[in-house]
């Protein structure tokens, strides 16, 4: 590795840029938090690094989780993009899968990222079985390119029907486009996603093209900014699947960064949990408007095949499965016309935010309820934007909007808001655990981000989780995740063949070739790996079904070279199907839809114990205050601790509040928190 021995993880959020330093030579760690610099995020990153390192030359590797892609998609700030497509099909992107944004209410609106006059058709056609029906007319392609350039397009996507089955026409068109297109911002649908389903492929490829210029520019600024600052090492970017990729790969496939930011947090969660002896966990990230949960089983996070960043903006690449519900600190509590207490989905967000921020919102939120109950310290707002929170305004809002309509006391009302919010969050946890056949008893909840730690105690009771684990620095979890994330390369290819008719020699050959190509991509960067793993999966189904089951094949490269047999594939399918649906279907033939190959370069992890608290000291030394807190219908005198001062091995009995700069933890009266050797607080039911 060029440069020095420090690895830097960087998470750029809306408000703060978090930087995590790991010195590989002596294993020491450090964190920095600086304001994010909108417009040019690299300035904030450099500032963060220089806050702790005088010489950036010490840094050998910067790993970066970025929200640039996510924001460009959500705010529709990608490049002006054109599409060249098969005659008769220019509206695929706009017609979607004939859906609507909400089940109820017909007021949907959708504007595709590529307007209709930048979607141009050319003569060509491939049939579903790969037959070349009509060769591509390259003169028309050249005309289309000229039209798109004249109309100001900066990036282009080539999307032909059935190109997953035979990419010949599409490749010929890409070659023709490359000869004229003024820059490298060209995306081919069969290159980025050779998978059946035209809208999903077109959308993914188009969004990739749409992101190429802004992500390309961003990465260039970042790299040159770092270089100007004296950095000579490598930069890696976190993908939505939780693995990292080289800057070069990110430039080519920027759509893979769609969920880069949150993915890094989940990866950190997996490592922290596994190190602490809890490889089964559910990460919970409570933000201003939403509550995001993700399940990690046996140290591995679940991956989803696709996600919609917004209505009609579908990205189909493997991503860490994150379930989001509208229950955040800013979620608004109200009594509906039927007299029921509801929390969200309406939200005051972080601006204007809760009533207690005093920025103009007067409807009570979850954060207001926490403040009224005494669980948040009005004098110490998290995040550092405000000096003080306005408790009186929060009280007044809860009185007016909740307590009076229900005919109850304001304190009862505030507690009710929290309970219903907890129930909603518990529902999200149940959704990712119970409903997928995981027993919550075997899982621990891990809050990260600012707000979650106030609610985790209630969540473990409500859902029946065994424990909750609050990492030592919940606010920098994502930056930490960057430092330890593995490198990863995914590839999918639609095969669409009957299991009984599959040529296993061909299949094995394709699997090997894809794996080898992926490995080469990994080795392009100068990153050291502990080892390289290959995962081979088939998406399979009974003939007649449209949804597939992911079937992991129990083979490795060596095994593949020795051959692959149909009986083993069938057995793997039947096991996976039975696990999902509880029953097999007799007499129905089986089809293989897609092949998925993943190559993972395992990066060395570091011992989290170095984050742990100093030895010695006592719990009493960490006690800073006592405060009255409303719990279950009464005020309780509650101890308040400086969380980072609590020594290893100390047990904090509930009720207690633990404060630290980036979060506040509430331990319910019937729970207790144990500080482990990594500095995590492990909350569980009190021993009787």
């Amino acid at each position, binding site marked *: 590795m060029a440069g020095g021995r420090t690895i830097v993880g960087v998470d750029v959020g809306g408000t703060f840029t978090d930087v995590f330093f790991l010195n590989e030579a002596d294993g020491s760690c450090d964190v920095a938090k600086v304001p994010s610099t909108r417009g040019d995020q690299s300035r904030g990153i450099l500032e963060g690094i220089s806050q702790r390192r005088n010489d950036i030359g010490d840094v050998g590797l910067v790993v970066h989780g970025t929200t640039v892609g996510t924001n460009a998609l959500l705010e529709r700030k990608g490049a002006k993009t054109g599409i060249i497509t098969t005659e008769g099909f220019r509206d695929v992107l706009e017609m979607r899968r004939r859906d609507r944004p909400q089940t109820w209410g017909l007021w949907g609106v959708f504007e595709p990222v590529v307007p209709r006059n930048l979607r141009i058709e050319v003569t060509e056609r491939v049939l579903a079985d790969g037959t070349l029906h009509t060769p591509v007319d390259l003169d028309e392609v050249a005309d289309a390119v000229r039209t798109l350039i004249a109309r100001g397009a900066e990036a282009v996507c080539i999307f032909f029907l059935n190109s997953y089955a035979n990419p010949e026409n599409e490749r010929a068109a890409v070659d023709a486009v490359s000869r004229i297109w003024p820059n490298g911002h060209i995306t081919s649908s069969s290159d980025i996603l050779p998978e059946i389903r035209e809208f999903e492929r077109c959308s993914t490829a188009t969004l990739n093209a749409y992101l190429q210029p802004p992500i390309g520019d961003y990465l260039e600024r970042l790299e040159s900014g770092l270089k100007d600052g004296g950095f000579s090492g490598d930069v890696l970017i976190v993908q939505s699947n939780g693995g990292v990729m080289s800057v070069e790969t990110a430039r080519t496939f920027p759509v893979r960064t769609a969920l880069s930011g949150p993915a890094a947090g989940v990866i950190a969660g997996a490592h922290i949990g596994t190190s602490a002896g809890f490889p089964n966990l559910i990460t919970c990230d409570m933000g201003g408007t939403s509550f995001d949960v993700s399940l990690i089983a046996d140290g591995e996070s679940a991956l989803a095949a696709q996600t919609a960043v917004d209505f009609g903006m579908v990205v189909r690449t493997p991503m860490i499965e994150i379930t989001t519900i509208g229950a955040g600190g800013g979620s608004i509590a109200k009594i509906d016309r039927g007299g029921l207490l509801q929390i969200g989905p309406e939200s005051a967000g972080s601006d204007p935010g809760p009533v207690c921020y005093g920025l103009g919102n007067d409807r009570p939120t979850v954060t207001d309820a926490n403040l009224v109950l005494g669980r948040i310290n009005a004098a110490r707002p998290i995040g550092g934007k405000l000096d003080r929170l306005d408790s009186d305004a929060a009280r007044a809002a809860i009185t007016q909007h909740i307590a009076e309509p229900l005919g109850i006391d304001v304190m009862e009302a505030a507690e009710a808001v929290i309970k219903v919010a907890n129930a909603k969050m518990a529902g999200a946890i149940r959704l990712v655990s119970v*409903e997928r056949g995981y027993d919550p008893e075997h899982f621990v909840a891990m809050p990260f981000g600012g707000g979650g730690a106030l609610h985790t105690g209630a969540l473990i009771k409500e859902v029946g989780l065994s424990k909750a684990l609050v990492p030592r620095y919940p606010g920098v979890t994502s930056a930490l995740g960057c430092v330890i994330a593995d490198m990863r390369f995914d590839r999918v290819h639609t095969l669409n063949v009957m299991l009984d008719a599959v040529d296993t020699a061909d299949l094995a050959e394709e699997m090997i070739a894809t794996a080898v190509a992926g490995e080469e991509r990994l080795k392009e960067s100068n990153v050291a790996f502990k080892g390289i793993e290959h995962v081979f999966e088939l998406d399979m189904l009974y003939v007649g079904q449209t949804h597939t089951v992911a079937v992991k094949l129990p083979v490795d490269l060596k095994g593949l070279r020795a051959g692959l047999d149909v009986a083993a594939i069938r057995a793997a399918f039947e096991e996976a199907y039975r696990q999902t649906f509880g029953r097999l*279907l007799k007499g129905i033939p089986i089809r293989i839809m897609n092949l998925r190959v993943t190559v993972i370069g395992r990066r060395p992890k570091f011992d989290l114990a170095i984050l742990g608290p100093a030895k010695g000291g006592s719990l009493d030394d960490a006690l800073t205050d006592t405060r009255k807190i409303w719990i279950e219908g009464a005020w309780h005198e509650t101890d308040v601790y400086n969380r980072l001062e609590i020594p290893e091995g100390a047990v904090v009995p509930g009720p207690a509040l633990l404060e630290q700069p980036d979060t506040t933890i509430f331990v319910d009266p019937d729970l207790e928190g144990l500080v482990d050797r990594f500095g995590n607080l492990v909350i569980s039911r009190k021993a009787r």
Partner: protein
Amino acid sequence: MTTLDPVMLAVLKGRLEQIADEMDATLFRSAFNPIIAEAHDASHGLYHAETGETLVQGKSGLPVFVGAMSFAVKAVIDKVAAEGITLHPGDVFIFNDPYEGGTHLSDFKLVRPFFRGGKLFCYLASVGHWHDVGGNVPGNYNPVATECYQEGMLIPPVLLCRAGEINQDIVAILQSNSRLPGSLYGDLNGQVSALELGEIRLSELLDEYGEDRINAALIELKKSAARLMASFIEELPDGTYSGEDWLDNDGITDMPLKIGLDLTISGDRMTLDFSRTSDACDGPVNISRSTCIASCYVALKHIFCDVPANAGVLEPITFNIPETSLLSVGRPKPVGGYTETILRVVDVMFQVMSQVAPDMTNGCAYGTINALSMAGYRKNGARWVMFSFFGGGHGGHPAGDGLNHGNAPISTATIPPLEILEAAYPVRFTQWALRPDSGGPGKRRGGCGAVYEIELLEEKADAFLFGERGKFAPAGVVGGGPGAVNKFFYPDENGGRAEPPMVSKMVGIKLRHGQRVRLETPGGGGYGNPMDRDPADVADDVRLGYVTATAARDRYKCVVSDAGVLDEAATARLRQET
């Protein structure tokens, strides 16, 4: 009786809804036919042990089932009482009788009694649209049926499972009456699994909270739903408001059929009077009373989105649906095209409600399901049936132009990917595009419908279409104009372009290799006066090809070049003249 605090109630509401949602998800994932797996034409819920009323229903199932399923459960309750059947845990009834619980023969309902402490606690039910249930037309949208017997097999409520054991004789009877027995077997198993899962989840919830509390929650949720609906009605101005809409024909005689509605608001009650509706017809666009009520519920829930899926919502509403009308038929009147009629009921509800609450409604959506099937035999003798519903435009609305190419208001169905259709059937799409000038003019334009053109790749096949809106276009509201009518073309004997005599309904179209059928679907109705549309928006529509320059001049009085450049002066003059 146990009383519940508001917190517990909110918590239990979420838990109960999750059970139904999870049953939905299980069937969607395991179903065989794309109508369930992709189009989500299915639904699950919990129903009252004595009345069959909907207690809780899943959020992702087909909206129209929300109202209809309670009638299906009631049919089972009545049968059990009439025949003195002793129920056991693990029993499952199956049937598709459309007069007992609504909709049409394609929808198979499975109803399972749920016991608690040896006593019947409630019913769990699952409904799903099967791919083929026999009858004259593959896919069962038979536009020329005059009796239900021509539409498919008709199964009355019978016991599919006795104490958890599936009666394989019933499965054999069902399978031998379908063109696609494998698909049927897969869907049936998916529905049985969904009910099993519901049983487990509900038991867990009862273990956790106890019967009394769950019962109290169910009662309170119904009351709260009724209060909520009543509070919305109370805010509307009292009075009687009227409107009508039309079906093209019944597929047998080319005569329009009227759906007439007089809606009266009086305090916190609403009366929906369908007396001015045409009598029952010979063809398959009749519906049963339960289906009519369900479709009114769907329209109301689109307007008042916050009301829950539970029987309480209908409490403040009185229905007057004459038994002689096509909205309240019994056996053996054909009902196979029920989707068309309920879409029309929804449309007439929107039109009348737009007079009462103009800022809460929207132009009508495209208003036809366009069930198009193509079927034949492959060279190896295997039967193939491609059956799908097609999309169209949504109406303009106060917040913007209507959605292009949306799904029908009665469902949340997505369309299968055309690449999947091409991979599964011997067809090739030659066009899959938005249809210019199909959106109704308005201050907020209706969304565009679509053009689908399909070419046959096998030697020969038959095509069938069941659609509507070929004569009567989707209406605009609050001064908005109508969308374009539905168009269908097929090759005649000489290879020329023919249109069906019944406009959008046709059976037995013979196709040969290389021949094409073409469907042009309606756009949505406009919202507000088109003269109030910003000329710059009209010019944009022309530039992007949603509206032609000719239509910009005729419908919006805007002078725009074909390239989309607005002539402001000429536009001002033209708008002044009008």
